[in-house]
Structures are given as C-alpha cells and as structure tokens.
C-alpha cells in the first residue's frame, strides 16, 4: 500500500533529515515508529502526508506516485491542530463541505464516526471546552469522516496522563477493528510502540534500519503485563541506544 523508495529529505541544504529510507507497508498494516527527539519522525509523517516534498526518492501509495496531499491520508498532529473557532461538528464537517457532500449524508457520516469514538455528546462544543483526550478523538474523527485509508499519528498520547493514555490506546485498537486502515503511530513511549505496532521501527538519524517484528504482542491487552511484553520493551530500548 505504502512504498518508500530511497527517500531523502532535508529542510536546509547539506543537513539531511531523512536518509535513504526504503520501506513497504501492507494495506492493513499497523506500525509504530520510535526514535529520539529530532531523529526525523514528524518529518517522515509530513512526507507521507504529501505536506513536504522529498528531495530525492519517491513515495508510492496504492502504486501511485505521491505528488500532492491525498484526500484519504489523515494526519493527527502532536498538539491536535484542531480549528478552535469551530465546534467539534464544524471541525469534522469542513473537509466534507469542501467536497460538496450533501448535508444529510454529511451529518449521517459525522454522527456515525463521533458515535464510534464515543464523543457524539460533544458535537456542539467548542474545542476549548473539551479535554486533551477528547481533542485527540476529534482529530481522528475529522479524518475518519473522509473515508481515510492511511492514518498518521504524531505522538498522539504524548500530552495525556497515564490513564487517559491507556484509554486512548484501546480506542485506537477498536478503531482498527472498525475501519480498515494502514496506520503509523509515532511515539516516544516504548510500551506504546510495542502495544500498538505489528512492526516496530526504530528510527535513528533519519534512517529506518531496524525493524522489529511484533505480531504476537500487538494489541494484546492481556499480554501487557507479561514477561514477553517486558522483554520486547527491553529489546526496543537496546536498539534505541
């Protein structure tokens, strides 16, 4: 589904941020990317969203060269990036309105997604009146209403407290069950990376050389306290060093 061929990017000349990345992801795959601050995690997501242009190399999505933003790729930003001057409903409807979706269909779709994310009761609220965890849900909702097939999460739970974070992770897993998606979660949190990724990619200095298979532990809540989970975390930690 997503294919990166020898991808390179730099913001300023001679300061490469993304270096020779080759990676292929399947249609239904969920991966997590972990890496230290400044290694290029946000940058790679922006490239995949079509919001930055590669300096060299290419990105293919569904065998099509990515040249511009793609309507079915949704990015959930670190700080939400919601529109505070719009209500929850307004944040969700803007993309549909821009696509001239009939009002009835639009409302139906938004209701359905908000219901699935358990925030339907917040529909008429402005963003300042909702909590951090709820904001993340709105950010997801506004991309899901656009029938997205690729979701890019930039440290989605970084600003949430431990309890809300767990809630959020489980919500994400339930979204995966309801919607067929290719999903990339960028995180600082090793446990989150292990819980939410079928593959864990350790990113260092703009490279993605280390890929850890994690099919067994992915999304398994009962395994979270297990030795295997703990060992996996240690393995990831070692590779990060």
């Amino acid at each position, binding site marked *: 589904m997503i294919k990166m061929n020898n991808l390179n990017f730099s913001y300023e000349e001679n300061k490469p941020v993304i270096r020779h990345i080759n990676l292929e992801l399947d249609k239904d795959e969920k991966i997590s990317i972990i890496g230290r601050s400044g290694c290029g995690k946000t940058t790679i997501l922006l490239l995949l969203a079509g*919001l930055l242009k590669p300096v060299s190399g290419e990105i293919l999505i569904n065998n099509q060269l990515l040249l511009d*933003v793609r*309507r079915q*790729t*949704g990015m959930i*930003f670190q700080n939400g*990036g919601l529109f505070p*001057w*719009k209500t929850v409903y307004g944040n969700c409807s803007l993309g549909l309105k821009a696509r001239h979706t009939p009002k009835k269909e639009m409302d139906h779709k938004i209701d359905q997604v908000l219901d699935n994310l358990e925030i339907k009761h917040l529909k008429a609220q*402005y963003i300042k009146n909702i909590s951090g965890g709820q904001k993340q849900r709105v950010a997801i909702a506004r991309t899901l209403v656009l029938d997205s097939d690729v979701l890019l999460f930039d440290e989605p739970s970084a600003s949430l407290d431990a309890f809300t974070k767990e809630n959020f992770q489980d919500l994400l897993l339930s979204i995966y069950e309801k919607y067929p998606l290719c999903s990339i979660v960028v995180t600082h949190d090793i446990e989150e990376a292990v819980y939410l990724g079928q593959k864990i990619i350790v990113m260092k200095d703009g490279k993605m050389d280390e890929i850890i298979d994690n099919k067994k532990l992915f999304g398994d809540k009962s395994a979270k306290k297990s030795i295997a989970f703990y060992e996996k975390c240690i393995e990831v930690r070692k590779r990060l060093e």
Partner: protein
Amino acid sequence: MKKILGFIIIFIIWYFISFIYHQQIPYPHDVIINFFNIFPEQLLEPTLESLSLLLTGLILSVLVGIHIGMYMGLSSRVNQIIDPIVYSIYPIPKSALVQVLIVIFASMFWMKTTLIFIIVVFPVIITVKDAVKTIPKEVFYHAKSLSLNKKEMYKEILFPAILPNLLSTLRISIGTSIAVLYLSETRGIGSGLGYYIDSHVVVNNLNMFTGIFELSLIGYLLFIGIDILEKRWCKWI
C-alpha cells in the same frame, strides 16, 4: 444591569462636578433635555456628517488592513517590504498628519476620511499580521490536506483566526479616531460635530456640552456594536 450601574456612577460624578462648578458645567438632566430639543434642527446634520466620515474611514481601513495584514502574515517577503513602511508612518503624530492632509486634499470629506483611515489602518495591519503568524502550522497543514480552495481558506481559517484580535484593535482605534476626528473638524473650514462643539464654546455652553455628550454617545454605541459582533462571531474564545 452592570452597564446601568456604570452610567449611574458617571452621572453621580457629573452631578457632583456640576454642583461645584455650576456656572460653567451644566447638569446632566439639562444636557439630556437639551439634546432632544436641539437634535433635529442643530445636531442631526453635523452628526450625519461626522458619522459617515467615521464609518467610511473605519470600513476602508478594515478592508485594506485585513488584506495587507494577511499578505504580510502569510509571506515573509511581502512582510519585509511593507514592514518598514508601516513602522515609519505609524508613529507620526496625528496632529501633524492633519496639517499635511489639509495641504494635499481639496475635499474636506476625503481629507478627514483619509486621516481616520491612516490612524486605523496601521494597527489593523499589525494586528492581522501578528494574528496570522500565531496560527499553528498544524492548522495550515490540515487545511492543506483538505485541499481547501482560496476562498474557503480565507473564510474558514484565516478570517475566523484573526477576528478576535481585529475586534479588540478596532475597539481601541475607535476611541482614537473619534478624538482625531474632533481635532480635524475644528481645523480649516470646520464642519461636523467637532466644529459644532468648538463653535459653541463661547456662544452657548449648554449646546457645547450637549455636543460632547453626543460624541461620547456615538463612541459608546460603536463599542456596543463591536461587542455584539464579538458575541456573535467569536463564541469560541
């Protein structure tokens, strides 16, 4: 309710001062009664003139200021060109501007409108520019990934984002522009409410105070107008 209390306080102070200086300063009730008596014949015309000046100047400066400010906020190149112009004209004393504009303009109406325009447009430009710059880049990213067209971009993102700051700036500018309007109406061939007040200083004390009373009433109503716009358009604040 609280607003009424504010008025009561003003009137109490006014009564108090009038009581002490009752030769020079008329009582509030006399001014208000006089206001209704002389308004149709003496005040209506200068009021309309001053008001149309004020509104034309305000509207023009908001329209122009929003456009320039947005361009400056969105493009650092435009910003670099216009910044020095804005920052060097803005601090010129307003009374000096009146003198310059009297020389340039043959029409008094456009002289005064231009004056108000110059006074309001710069704060508007600076406010809009800064407001655009503080929009988080994620907001632009998301807008871009929705492929919004130019019109939607202005209507859905840029305009709502700058509106609260714009209204605050207008609130401040209205006070200044009324003060400067008064100044300009008393220069050269005077006209409008400012001239009315000025020409009654010696002749009729009561009428002069009635004119001042009206001027502050106009300012108050404009403030209220902005409050209403804010309540309606900036619920999200």
